[in-house]
């Protein structure tokens, strides 16, 4: 693991009692953080030099959990060394870097994927099953909600974690749409399909954060529309062991509806998935609602895929498309015109945002 910051405790948990892979070596430039993780996790194999990870023959998979703008360097070098590589989302901050990583995978003996855990969250997978089984008919609208709170969390999130995300707004990105929003955009594609065009509004709160926001889009090749609304709900207690985020999804189909209630955090006691059809509500209450479950499934999927010789869902190409989707939303909101994600390029990003 290269990068042992805040989020990585979820990765560590995923490797516990996992027969197909073990967490073997930790690497971070911050020695204090490295020693802290080493003590917490009981892993003595540590280094501040990433090359000791990439060129270690014992290592099959390199996890890159560094800040976004550093992904390319580690991913490409690890792939060039023949390693399998998993990096955290988003893939990068530029399309060029994303393409470089995709290209490196093609030349490598190793596989590459970009971890995004929402598509492994049990109630979202169940929703996908129900949609594919035509339980609600053709999808007409899908709406994503993100409410961001400061209270209700059972752990301390270092200020620096939040500050770093805020500063990304200054570089044309942003915490709510670009970073955390990646999960919802990924889900938008996973549950329905590819995005054709987008429009909307993104505002600024407290100088740095990209919310509230109200974004809409049209899907390719089908009569389905999507939306994403983001609100600062700062004083709303949002119960969570991870991040106090109120995340909900409403899907309206020609013959029914699905409501998904909560992921990272929860604001109400209600079933995680409710299906409405034929005048009845079906409450799916027996789904694991712990956010860790999505990390565990998502992280374990990669080594299992390698061993089984199959592809994973979270390819570099997919991650690049989500990156374009995010930038399309940000640029569209800035310019007040519709943008097609397929048209997004680094030139456009540089011209419009930087």
């Amino acid at each position, binding site marked *: 693991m290269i990068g042992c910051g805040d989020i990585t405790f979820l990765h560590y948990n995923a490797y516990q009692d996992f027969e197909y892979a073990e967490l073997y070596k930790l690497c971070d430039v911050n020695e204090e953080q490295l020693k802290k993780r080493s003590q917490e996790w009981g892993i003595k194999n540590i280094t501040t030099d990433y090359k000791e990870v990439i060129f270690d023959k014992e290592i099959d998979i390199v996890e890159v959990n560094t800040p976004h703008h550093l992904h390319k360097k580690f991913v490409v070098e690890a792939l060039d060394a023949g390693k399998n590589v998993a990096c955290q989302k988003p893939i990068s901050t530029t399309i060029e870097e994303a393409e470089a990583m995709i290209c490196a995978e093609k030349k490598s003996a190793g596989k590459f994927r970009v971890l995004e855990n929402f598509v492994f969250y049990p109630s979202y997978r169940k929703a996908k099953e129900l949609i594919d089984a035509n339980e609600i*008919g053709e999808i007409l609208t899908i709406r994503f909600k993100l409410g961001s709170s400061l209270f209700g969390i059972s752990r301390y999130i270092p200020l620096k974690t939040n500050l770093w995300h805020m500063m990304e707004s200054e570089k044309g990105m942003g915490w709510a749409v670009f970073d955390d929003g990646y999960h919802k955009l990924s889900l938008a594609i996973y549950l329905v399909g590819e995005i054709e065009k987008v429009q909307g509004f993104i505002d600024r709160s407290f100088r740095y954060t990209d919310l509230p926001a109200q974004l*809409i889009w049209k899907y390719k090749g089908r*009569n389905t529309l999507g939306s994403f609304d983001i609100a600062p709900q700062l004083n709303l207690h949002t119960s969570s062991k991870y991040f106090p985020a109120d995340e909900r999804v409403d899907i309206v189909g020609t*013959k*029914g*509806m699905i409501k998904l209630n909560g992921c990272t955090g929860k604001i109400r006691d209600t079933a995680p998935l409710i299906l409405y059809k034929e005048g009845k509500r079906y409450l799916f209450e027996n789904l694991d609602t712990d956010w860790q479950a999505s990390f565990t499934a998502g992280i374990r999927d990669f080594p299992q895929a390698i061993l089984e010789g199959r592809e994973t869902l979270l390819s570099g190409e997919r991650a690049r498309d989500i990156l374009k989707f995010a930038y399309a939303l940000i640029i569209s909101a800035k310019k007040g015109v519709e943008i097609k994600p397929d048209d997004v390029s680094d030139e456009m990003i540089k011209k419009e945002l930087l």
Partner: protein
Amino acid sequence: MKIKIIEIISFLIIGVLKVILSLPNGIFLFLLKIINTGAKTINKQVPILTELIEIIQTDKGATNTLRNIVLQGNYSQLFYFLRGALIHQVEFLSPQIKIPLPHQPKKVKYPNLTVGICGDNFDLQMLSSAYQQKGCKVISYEKMEDILKDNNISKVNILETAYFLPENILEKILSQKISISLHFSSIKSPDMVEEIAPRIKTPFRIFYPYFYYPPVQIIKEMLKSNILGEVYTIRIRATASNHGGKFAPQKIEEDAFLSHPAFDHYLLLTFLGGKVEKVAAYLGKIDQEKGGQAVISCKLSTPLRYGLLEYSFAPDMYIYSQYFPYDLEIEIAGTDGIIWLNQGMANRTCEAPIQVRIGKRHYSLGIESFLQTGWESVYSQAVDDFILAPKNKINFPEIISAIKLKQALYKAGEISKVIDI
């Protein structure tokens, strides 16, 4: 009273913070160290204090970011955040949150009133019935011109009309000093309201059923009391179908659907959220058999406030209703929490009509609170409000804004660009 005190404290805290953060880092660091020492003395570890001290000592960039959040952030947002934090997070300050109680229907009758009903749409039929139940005499006019022929018009006190008033009829009505209630569907342009409103000296309203739907009235009161702090997003989802309700299926004509019933809810948006400034839209094809939808994203005039209108025609969805199968859901999110409206005309689910999550609390308003939610209560409420309220020129700026929004939507959908309203 307690909330007022909290608001004053919030104002003072922001003022003090702005002063301290404008001074060199050393002073802020000094104050933080004192507070941290105090906390340690009473055996309390406050991680954020320790981290703040470390950041100020070692990270200039992060320190500037923190400083800018307060100094350059939106004042109102800071104020409402602090206000809400003190209300909901500080136990000893925590005031009693007042949730408005539902209005109970008035049992009074109005036997001396005569009401003219001109037109025959569903709302007017229900209004006619409500007036009769309240003891009023009701005279029906099929067309506007019938009013001119009727000698009894001099006895009419209130005219409910589905048609806009042509000049000659308006003159006659004004000369009789009749109170006028215009059905919202008769208003085709904002000019119509702007021209006619100043001339009418008697009570005058534009009737839209949701203005009188008791749960919507309660929500409006909650918003006025700042129960959510600052309101940031208002989402209105309306779904119609071919099944459920005695008036289903209704023939859907593609263009008409986007006007009614779907786009009626632009009035709800402005009623609850205020005027609309900009709009972006995707308008899908609507088909009786295949369904269809539209999503509209709005920037409201109030800073940092946005609206989402989401309409769908789900042909095969069963939506239980005593009238039309029109399902409604509203979600309003703000600094301190969320208000949901879970039903409108239809009763797709049996959840409580209003649910509120604010701070650490949850409130549910429905049958347990004697909240009237049957659709008939709309018309009963509408009758009482118009007769008993001394002035009824309500919400005209919002109504005008809603009509402008409706006109702008088609253009926004056509050119796929944000339109200024």
